[in-house]
């Protein structure tokens, strides 16, 4: 890669999505990307995050408009179901494309 392009690519790391870039949120986004929705128990068991941390990370993603949190009843039992919004799906795709571009 010529020097100009290399510095340009490094410089452009600035435009990477910081909301997704944190390890915990990236794990959550990746899990939700392959599903239509999952409850907090599933997200906790898959990521190994504490309840507190999980709630904070989900709230951050919700504030960014990347996930939607709903209360659903499955077999008469309440489940807090988190799913990726359309915006979140687009953002994750753009993030993964950008990361691949940088690493390649």
């Amino acid at each position: 890669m010529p020097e100009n392009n290399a510095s340009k690519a490094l410089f452009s790391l600035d435009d990477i999505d910081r909301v997704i870039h944190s390890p915990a949120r990236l794990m959550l986004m990746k899990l939700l990307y392959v599903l239509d929705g999952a409850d907090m128990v599933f997200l906790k068991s898959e990521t190994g995050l504490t309840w507190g941390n999980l709630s904070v990370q989900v709230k951050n993603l919700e504030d960014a408009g990347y996930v939607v949190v709903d209360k659903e009843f499955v077999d008469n039992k309440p489940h807090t179901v988190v799913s990726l919004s359309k915006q979140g799906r687009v953002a994750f795709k753009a993030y993964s494309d950008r990361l691949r571009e940088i690493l390649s």
Partner: protein
Amino acid sequence: MVHELKVLERRIATRYMEDGFWDMYLGLMALAFGLTIFLDVSYLTGVMVAIGYALQRIGKSLVTFPRIGYIKLRKARKSGMVALLSGVLVLGLMIFMLFMLGEENPVRAFVLQNMLFFIAFIWGGAIALAALSFNIKRFYVYALLVFFAVILSDLVGILGLNLIVAGVMIILAGLLVMLRFIRKHPIISGLD
């Protein structure tokens, strides 16, 4: 990345088969067919399959979801599973139609001559397809068990009895899988 995501999706779907409930449901179906043939009670299969499905749902709700959580699979994967089941049904229907065609149909005569082999092949094949789709090795064993339970009925016993034995064996295996699942995944209590 796309490949990795597909692997992740498949791993998650497979994880939900590790609770043993589908094993027990499959075993119950074999048992139901066996009892239907053995006792000659035509409605037994329908009743047992419906009860088994309800029990499977309740089991998932009481055992699986509190341990590994509740998920909604992507519509594409659901469609894939429906397509798989539909394919098996269509295959069965096609063979049935061939079987129904005119008296002098050579296919009909061939199917009639090898009826047990066809039943064993369709049933065992459907279970093997599920094993392949979900990457669950023990389902291959069930496929072989059901295949031989049907095909050997001419040699070593009555068809119904063979299926009853195979069904009970699969149910017991499912129970062991469920116990292992419960030991491996304690209930996660907290937010939900």
